[in-house]
């Protein structure tokens, strides 16, 4: 009688060959671990996951179709709304691909400023990940510390772009406005401020035995799996492959800057965690150098009044905070794009979740999901 009741309570499941009964557990669409409206259908055997099937699409906005009914430049604000946490890098990809196609020259100062703002944006994105990941793991306080630091970045970026999240700062051929000395001093101060903070995070979180026990050896994603699924960014760099678009397919002024690509070969959640923590340090270095090298000059190049892209298809990838973000545009020579394809890192990174989470326990699978650093609009677009 009791057994029957328990069985009916957990829902009709499948009896496994060894007599265990499975049940389906829905993670989401509204669930504290999914940071947005993502649903993951888990088929569980007790606390073990037999199959995890992500069901995205709850906030699908048809960003790609939107590109097909507005002009090249009107699509600019959209690009910062795909992954709202690293809006700068996404806009960067879009302006780069259009500039590449239309042959627009960008003044060096603008490229440097793009790099500075992109890297600041990357740090702020990683800080959100850091806080949210710790939240997944049940640590609340680091989130608030991370947001405190992030506020400083947002203040800086707001002072130049006028916006805190969806910047829309880049334009074809440059930037919409130049930065002032205040911003540069502020950015320098931020770099000086952030370094001890990162050391503090190392002591408070990275070295913490509970965190290490939770992440080390958990959620194995190796290089082969990354390759088969197209997973990029910190996921592949945590699998020992130095894949970073900034180095592999250099763009902008990144080749002129000295920075390391953090690579860890443990393939586990800890490796991905450490990659991102190290990346923040590297981004600080990039910001520092770019400010030191920042040339004088205009921030806007010569751009035709109405941007037209010669017919053909063009592709450009950038390294966004979550990995390789690429835009493929197809033009028929008109003022309006014929097709815009957004290749987003979260989409590819999540696609391996089903395979990587097989046989894991529920809390570990959530650590794995957190370590992928998903942004749901980035999956759904």
């Amino acid at each position, binding site marked *: 009688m009791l057994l029957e009741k328990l069985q009916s309570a957990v829902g009709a499941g499948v009896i496994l060959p060894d007599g265990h009964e499975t*049940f389906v557990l829905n993670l989401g669409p509204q669930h*504290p671990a999914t940071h947005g409206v993502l649903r993951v259908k888990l088929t569980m055997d007790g606390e073990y996951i037999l199959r995890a099937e992500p069901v995205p699409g709850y906030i699908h906005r048809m960003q790609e179709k939107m590109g097909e009914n507005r002009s090249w430049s009107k699509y600019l604000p959209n690009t910062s709304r795909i992954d709202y946490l690293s809006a700068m890098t996404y806009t960067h990809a879009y302006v780069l691909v259009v500039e590449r196609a239309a042959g627009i020259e960008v003044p060096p100062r603008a490229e440097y400023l793009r790099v500075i703002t992109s890297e600041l944006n990357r740090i702020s994105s990683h800080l959100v990940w850091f806080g949210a990941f710790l939240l997944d793991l049940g640590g609340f306080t680091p989130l608030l510390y991370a947001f*405190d630091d992030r506020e400083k970045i947002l203040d800086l970026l707001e002072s130049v772009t006028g916006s805190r999240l969806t910047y829309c700062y880049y334009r074809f051929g440059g930037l919409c406005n130049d930065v002032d000395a205040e911003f540069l001093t502020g950015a320098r101060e931020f770099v000086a401020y952030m370094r001890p903070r990162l050391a503090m995070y190392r002591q408070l979180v990275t070295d913490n035995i509970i965190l290490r026990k*939770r992440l080390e050896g958990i959620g194995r994603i190796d290089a082969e799996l990354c390759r088969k699924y197209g997973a990029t960014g910190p996921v592949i760099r945590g699998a020992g492959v130095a894949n970073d678009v900034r180095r592999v397919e250099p763009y902008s002024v990144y080749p002129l800057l000295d920075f390391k690509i953090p690579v860890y070969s443990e393939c586990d959640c800890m490796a991905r965690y450490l990659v991102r923590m190290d990346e923040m340090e590297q981004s600080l270095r990039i910001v520092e150098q770019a400010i030191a090298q920042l040339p004088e000059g205009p921030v806007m190049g010569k751009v035709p009044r109405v941007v037209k892209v010669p017919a053909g298809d063009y592709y450009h990838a950038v390294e966004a905070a979550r990995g390789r973000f690429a835009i493929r545009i197809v033009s028929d020579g008109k003022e309006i794009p014929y097709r815009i394809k957004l290749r987003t890192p979260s989409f590819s990174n999540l696609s391996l979740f089903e395979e990587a989470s097989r046989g894991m326990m529920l809390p570990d699978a*959530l650590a794995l999901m957190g370590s992928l650093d998903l942004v749901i609009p980035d999956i759904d677009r």
Partner: protein
Amino acid sequence: MTLPEPFRLLAYLAGVMAFVGVNAAYLVWVERKGAARFQRRPGPTEVGPAGLLQPLADAAKLLSKQLLVPPDADRTLFRVAPVLVMAPALMCLATIPFGKTLGARSLDLGLVMVFAFGSINVMAIMLGGWASRNKYAIISAARIVSQNVAYEIPMMLVVITLIMVTGTTNLQEIVEDQAGGFWKWNVFNLAANPLMPVTFVIFFICMLAETNRAPFDMAEAESELVAGAFTEYAGMGFGVFFMAEYANILVGCSLGAILFLGGWQSPFGILSGVGWFLLKLYALVFTVVWVRWTFPRTQFYGLLNLSWKILIPVSLGTLVLTCIMLKIF
């Protein structure tokens, strides 16, 4: 003036209930303020000075909510579980000596009684999870049982060590045994067992686990199980579970203060009284809050590993060591 025994008991019962009620409510405030301070924000500020009336506002809100029972839940068990989780905590406090003469009942088997009632708490949470007919709640209930089974063992081993040192299970006598300065407190009683501070740490960890506090809050690991066993509870049903959690912390910390920190004894051996006991109690409570807002949650099997592979062997070791020490000296 002395009251007849039944009235005296009633008065104490009322006193204990009031103490638990006020404390449970205000520990929520302490927790929220504490969390806010650790996170460098002000915390509740709007209701009353420094948000002091926040617990009342919360209670009013919870009371005004409809008590929903999920359609397929076991109605009786679902309703009974919050009561069952609250009552044992009250019973436990009946044996706690607050001062030299302040305590509801000085029982010879006080310590045993505390643990006997303390274990019911787990059953009640399990019942609540079970009765709500929710997958998250059932997983949570299963977790909470195995967690508590795992942590009662080292806890008991530690307490047996203590009983061997003090030679009694009467809480009042245990406190009296530690009179005469803080070096006489059990936590520093190195003569009985050089590993006494370690024993205290084990006790504290077990206490956190027994009361389902972070970093061992597997039962309501909100990123995995939403609100665990309490997912389906609304209004005051949830409120009672919430209060019971704090009541249990109160019991756990009182026990810690009594067993290891000399209860109402003053550290300098001059004055002693309720004030010292409360000070020690709240210091421990603060540490509990502090720990929660510092660490991430352990994973479930990590928690069991910690218990079975580290805490039980070590506490068994201290027990054996104490035996030897007591036999020799």
